């Protein structure tokens, strides 16, 4: 019944990442190996408060990493937990990025908003196993320069061989060094990658996905090489509660990472 009853995880450390944003280092109270894919998620619970889906950010020093933004009741309570607290954890659930299938290709990452965990986790992985992939292109859009999380990481990626980092700020008047003004999708015109041999991973608001896709088509990227990490209301994470339905799909079970042609008919349709 471990799929249903949480295992306990001890909050051994918290790293502040930004305004109301922490990375939680969770030590599982279990001897079982915890296998996962980037793009999968766990359901994290605070008993008596609630349970929320959070993407798996990584694994470091025997700890599972989750980066949590405080946006409401449960996530705020999670950030307020002192080190040493115990949480409940169910997972991992869902399908992650099929990174093994992308080996030998150029990788293009597109994200908008405030630090999109599933994509950042995949970039970390690609960078750690740099020789498995060819070029890495990272496109990130934010409203203001200072909204960019993990600035140091982006700087390090930019300085890495064969890696292009393009940043856009949509609500700035003045352009800063390394930045462009405008939407993240406009960065695609400057992205250098081989469209016939690439994998594109997108995470962020659906409106951004919808505007990125025509640019990718212009560059002759095949629909089947585009992957999207979708978000919906999750109550169970297990394909049972019905909240996360997107047309015929249960996003928690059939996603959250989808190959674009599968969700194409439902993407951007109001009400789904």
């Amino acid at each position: 019944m471990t799929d249903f009853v949480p295992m306990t995880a001890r909050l051994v450390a918290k790293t502040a990442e930004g305004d109301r944003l922490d990375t939680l280092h969770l030590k599982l109270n279990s001897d079982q190996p915890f296998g996962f894919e980037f793009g999968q998620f766990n359901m994290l619970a605070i008993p008596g408060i609630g349970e929320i889906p959070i993407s798996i950010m990584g694994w470091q020093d025997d700890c599972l990493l989750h980066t949590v933004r405080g946006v409401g009741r449960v996530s705020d309570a999670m950030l307020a937990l002192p080190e040493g607290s115990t949480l409940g954890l169910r997972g991992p659930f869902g399908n992650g990025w099929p990174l093994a299938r992308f080996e030998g290709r150029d990788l293009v990452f597109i994200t908008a908003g405030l630090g999109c965990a599933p994509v950042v986790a995949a970039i970390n992985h690609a960078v750690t196993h740099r020789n498995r992939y060819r070029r890495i292109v990272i496109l990130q859009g934010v409203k203001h320069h200072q909204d960019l999380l993990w600035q140091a990481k982006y700087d390090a990626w930019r300085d890495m061989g064969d890696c292009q980092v393009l940043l856009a700020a949509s609500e700035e008047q003045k352009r800063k060094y390394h930045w462009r003004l405008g939407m993240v999708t406009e960065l695609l015109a400057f992205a250098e990658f081989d469209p016939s041999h690439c994998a594109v991973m997108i995470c962020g608001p659906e409106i951004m996905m919808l505007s990125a896709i025509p640019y990718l088509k212009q560059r002759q990227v095949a629909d089947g090489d585009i992957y999207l990490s979708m978000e919906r209301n999750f109550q169970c994470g297990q394909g049972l509660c019905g909240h996360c339905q997107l047309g015929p799909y249960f996003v928690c079970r059939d996603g959250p990472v989808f190959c674009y042609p599968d969700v194409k008919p439902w993407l951007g349709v109001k009400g789904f």
Partner: protein
Amino acid sequence: MPSRPGYSSTVAMDKVYLPRGSLGELYQALVDEGYEVIGPQEQQDAIVFAPLSGIEQLPWGRQEFTAPGQYRLDNASEQRAFHWNTGPQSFKPWLFKPQQVMWLGQETDDGIVFKAPVSDAKPRAFIGVRSCDIAALYLQDQHFMHGPHPDPWYSEQRRQLCIVAVNCSRAADTCFCVSTGDGPEATYGYDLLLDELDDGYLVQAKGERGNRILATLPTQGATPLQQRHAEEQLARAARQSRQMPDADTLKSLVEHLSDEQWLRIAERCLACGNCTSVCPTCFCSKQEAEQDLVSGEHQQVRVWDSCFSEQHGHIAGKNIRGEVSQRYRQWVLHKLATWQDQYQRSGCVGCGRCISWCPAAIDLVEEVNLMLGSRHD
């Protein structure tokens, strides 16, 4: 999943006769097999499934009169136990419970300890189950038991179920099971199946357990006349005025995403969720955290939910189905169209409950036919 042929009666096969005076022996046989017996009875002006202390509790001589937005029990012309068709709920709440504790969390000196709740599943026999509700049960089985994370509470009760089904001898005005291929005759999923006649029952059994129980009953051979009566009343129950379009036609509902009819329905729909809560196939739930400040014990509870509710599509600061028209469309498109992608058939078994329990008298079948018609002519 058994195939669902169009309606054709198979009444003649392997049926024996149980006099009405011996129905109590069927009840007793189920008790002797170790089952808690659950059956239909009249409570607060409706037929509900509840523990049965004896067959005298059955709704003898009662039947319901239904219409869009209406459900009324009254005396029937015949003194039968199963002359009604449906109540507001199938036996779904006994398997997929309206409230289910998922886990308990206890604060201890070493932090929190999580444990599973005690299950109250036990051998349960249901009397009076209709073919539409068996079809709905098989759909719920697919959802709760055959996915990547089988629901332990549903599964545990499901494995201890004995079903005594009844063929419908009449159809309520809101029934349309013939058009969905789910009735009025039960063809699978039961242990015992009854045809109710004026003075007794034709009985047939399926499987080892059903046959074992049947062997203990004081049955006689069924006469050709009794068999003909059973066939005639099944044929009567199969005469239904409403017709749901066939599965392939229903799939084409996804081409009507921006039909103005959704907006017109939304003017009447109260988004109350009655339709989803009486539907025997709906499976949505939400989770709630409860805290006992005194004992320090916490519970995570799963509660029935509906795509008509405010928080069902809540994400990133908004409800993706903010408009009532979008919620009504979700209900119809899921139930009739995308359900087919998920479970290889439509999620509607033709029971008509959503029609009679809609306070706005919205008729699912009529709306769907209108929508599909408005496009095709």
